[in-house]
Structure formats: C-alpha cells, structure tokens
C-alpha cells in the first residue's frame, strides 16, 4: 500500500470527506511524526507501536567504491517497535 492508496482508502471510508482533505490529513500526520522525531521526541501510538531514536556511535567506515577510510560521525537513527495489537494481527494468519 502506498501513500496515495492510503489516501484513497480513507476517502472511501468517509464519503463526506473530499480527497483534498484526506490528502491534507495524511500529510499533516506524517509531517508531525517526522518533525517529532527530528526534534528528538518519541512517538507512542497505542495499539500500533512506538518510534524512538537509537544512538549509533562514531565509527570508521569505508567508501565501497574507492576503498578509502571515512570517519562516520555518531548519530541517531529512527527505530520502530510494533505494539501488541499490530504484533498479534500480523502473526495471526501465518
């Protein structure tokens, strides 16, 4: 499912909702989530999961093309942990 398919599903779920509003709603939610993580703030959605940041220490990497050493600075990367309901539902049909 892509973002536009998600928007289409939300529009068909709410017949009174125009596509433009569903588009804006999806954009608003995703932008707020991205902004929250970008500010170092975690996200917690009950029944879906939580997003937080994991620390990666600095390391010496290699440029795969030239083979030369490159210093990779320390950083944070986004991390998702599925919530109970999502975890159980994806595993159910197996």
């Amino acid at each position: 499912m892509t973002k536009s398919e998600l928007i289409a599903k939300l529009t068909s779920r709410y017949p009174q909702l125009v596509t433009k509003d569903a588009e804006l709603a999806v954009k608003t939610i995703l932008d707020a989530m991205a902004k929250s993580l970008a500010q170092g703030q975690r996200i917690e959605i009950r029944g879906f999961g939580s997003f937080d940041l994991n620390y990666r220490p600095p390391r010496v990497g290699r440029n795969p093309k030239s083979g030369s050493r490159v210093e990779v600075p320390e950083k944070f990367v986004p991390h998702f942990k599925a919530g109970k309901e999502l975890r159980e539902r994806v595993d159910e049909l197996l």
Partner: protein
Amino acid sequence: MTLTKADLADLLFDKVGLNKREAKDMVEAFFEEIRASLEEGDTVKLSGFGNFQLRDKPQRPGRNPKTGEEIPISARRVVTFHASQKLKGLVELHYAKQQQRHFNQ
C-alpha cells in the same frame, strides 16, 4: 514529551478543519488502514517517511531467562520499519544542530 494520537487529532482539528470527533476518528483510521494492510501481508510504503515491511522468522532455540529452561521460539511474522532517507536526514540534522548549540555554549 511524547507525540500521541491526541496530539495528532488536535493537529487535524487545527490544520484540516475536521471537528474534534472526526479528527479523532481520522487518526484512528489512519493507523487502522496501515495495520489492516500489514495484516494482509502487504508492505506499506509512505514516501518521505518510510516503509513498513514484513519478515518471516523461522523457529529458533530460546531460553526462559528465569529458569534457564530451553524452549523453542516459534516461527513468526514480524513488522520492521525502514525510515526513508529524508527522515534519517532530518533526524541527523537535528543531532548536528544540537551539537553545534552545545559547542557554542
């Protein structure tokens, strides 16, 4: 501070002009559609944010950490999230800015 469904509903009220009830339902529906798609085994790709994928894990040996007893961990399907380059970049940028601020103080 943590971003929650209530915060997202407030934003939909402010920015999209949905009423409080509709905003709350829309947030719920947004996550429900993603769950439903993953439940059916379908990957979810949200451009600019990231992809939710499914991984089938084979059975593996495990242990009860309390008793030390060996019990197999059953085969299962799990959800993994891969942040887009854009989201990774935003998060790193924040970190760089924070370091800069710290340095300037």
